[in-house]
């Protein structure tokens, strides 16, 4: 197997690790830290201790420029995610929350390194390396263990953890992780492999479909927005679009051959949309992608399309059945996986 195949196999069957320098993490402190987040985020900021919520940061035209989680730990708020640099996010929040005074932001990448663990048995390896407290962490939960920040999220459809390790202690943690990881057949998964899994699971990627100037309504991300809130950046544009209606939507598809990004999609010689991103799905043995399709062709379950002679079928997302759905931390173990008959 190639390195890519080994990394992919680990994400889908055991556990894979990756350094994640592209992950941004800001800590917001002060009595108005949550007010600041509430001012700039399009979701409702009602967070219990240790809870995370998946949302977006929108520009004034309602286009997402960052894919983020907002989190609460004690009195502190955290903003974790992908997109612009930490400094750019800090400047943007400072500008847009100018009326909120008592809060400050710290870029944790200056003191911590980020590591991602993904896979159906990531929970078990995490517990062995970082302690059994990790096992009790629900999806979209965060915890601070000593100086280590653990966020349970991920975008591969498998159990996923983002770990923020203090830079001066990283080598100790990493050595332990690699040592115990060997018994889990852990492999390194580079960004290309993780992007492949993100695509298969139809997770939003700010660096791919997020670069096409599409709104959350067209991206099928309305669940990341509050239906009640009216005063976040981009709210007016979103409200206007909801009123006027939108006529194209991101839709998951499969093809038997690779199709190019930007390729036109036709139905009986009529152009009905175009491909935004596509790639090979090892789990399926064919190609999956995201297309921007016009109404009324934007539905899943239609096999009436072509891309330059290649048949294209729209499907319901996600495109794969993840093993993690069947693996339970209470009943299963990587070490007994063959007897577990999952």
């Amino acid at each position: 197997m190639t390195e890519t195949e080994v990394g992919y196999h680990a994400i889908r069957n055991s556990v894979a690790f990756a350094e994640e320098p592209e992950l941004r993490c800001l800590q917001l402190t002060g009595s108005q830290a949550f007010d600041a987040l509430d001012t700039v985020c399009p979701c409702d900021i009602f967070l219990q201790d240790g809870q995370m919520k998946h949302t977006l940061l929108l520009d004034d035209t309602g286009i997402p420029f960052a894919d983020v989680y907002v989190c609460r730990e004690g009195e502190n708020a955290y903003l974790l995610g992908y997109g612009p640099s930490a400094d750019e996010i800090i400047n943007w929040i400072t500008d847009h929350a100018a009326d909120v005074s008592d809060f400050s932001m710290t870029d944790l990448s200056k003191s911590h390194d980020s590591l991602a663990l993904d896979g159906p048995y990531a929970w078990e390896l995490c517990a062995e390396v970082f302690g059994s407290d990790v096992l009790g962490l629900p999806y979209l939960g965060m915890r601070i263990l000593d100086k280590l920040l653990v966020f349970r999220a991920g975008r591969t459809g498998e159990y996923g953890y983002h770990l923020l390790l203090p830079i001066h202690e990283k080598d100790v943690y990493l050595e332990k992780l690699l040592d115990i990881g060997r018994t889990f057949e852990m492999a390194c998964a580079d960004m290309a492999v993780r992007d492949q899994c993100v695509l298969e699971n139809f997770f939003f990627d700010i660096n791919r479909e997020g670069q096409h100037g599409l709104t959350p309504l067209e991206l099928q991300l309305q669940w990341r927005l509050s239906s009640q809130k009216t005063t976040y950046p981009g709210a007016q544009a979103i409200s206007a679009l909801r009123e006027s209606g939108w006529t194209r939507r991101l839709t998951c598809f499969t093809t038997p051959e690779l199709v190019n990004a930007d390729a036109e999609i036709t139905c009986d010689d009529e152009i009905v949309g175009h491909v935004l991103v596509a790639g090979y799905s090892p789990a399926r043995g064919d190609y999956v992608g995201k297309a921007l399709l016009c109404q009324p062709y934007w539905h899943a379950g239609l096999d009436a399309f072509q891309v330059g002679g290649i048949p294209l079928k729209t499907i319901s997302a996600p495109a794969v059945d993840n093993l993690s759905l069947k693996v339970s931390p209470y009943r299963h173990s990587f070490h007994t996986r063959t007897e577990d008959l999952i």
Partner: protein
Amino acid sequence: MRPELKEKIEQRENTLNRVIELLISSLQLDHSSEELDPDTPLFGTGLGLDSVDAVEIVVALESEFGISLEEGDSMFALRTINSLVDVVLRQSEDNLDDRN
């Protein structure tokens, strides 16, 4: 547009709308139907439903569409709104085949 494609799209759209209305009413969701996208995840992230909601959905689907989810299927059928629509359409087709 070919009539058979038009019919298929209408069938998909009607079922999708019915499933969305069913979710809103049976779970008392604080959303309008236009705010629920077809590929919205149901559990964990997305609508953030829980296991009690899952039971409600299974009961509501049986009542509204006369379909039942097998235990092994439900894990995958309940992933998104669209995956529920797939199950409804597939079982409706199976039921039609059985009657014929």
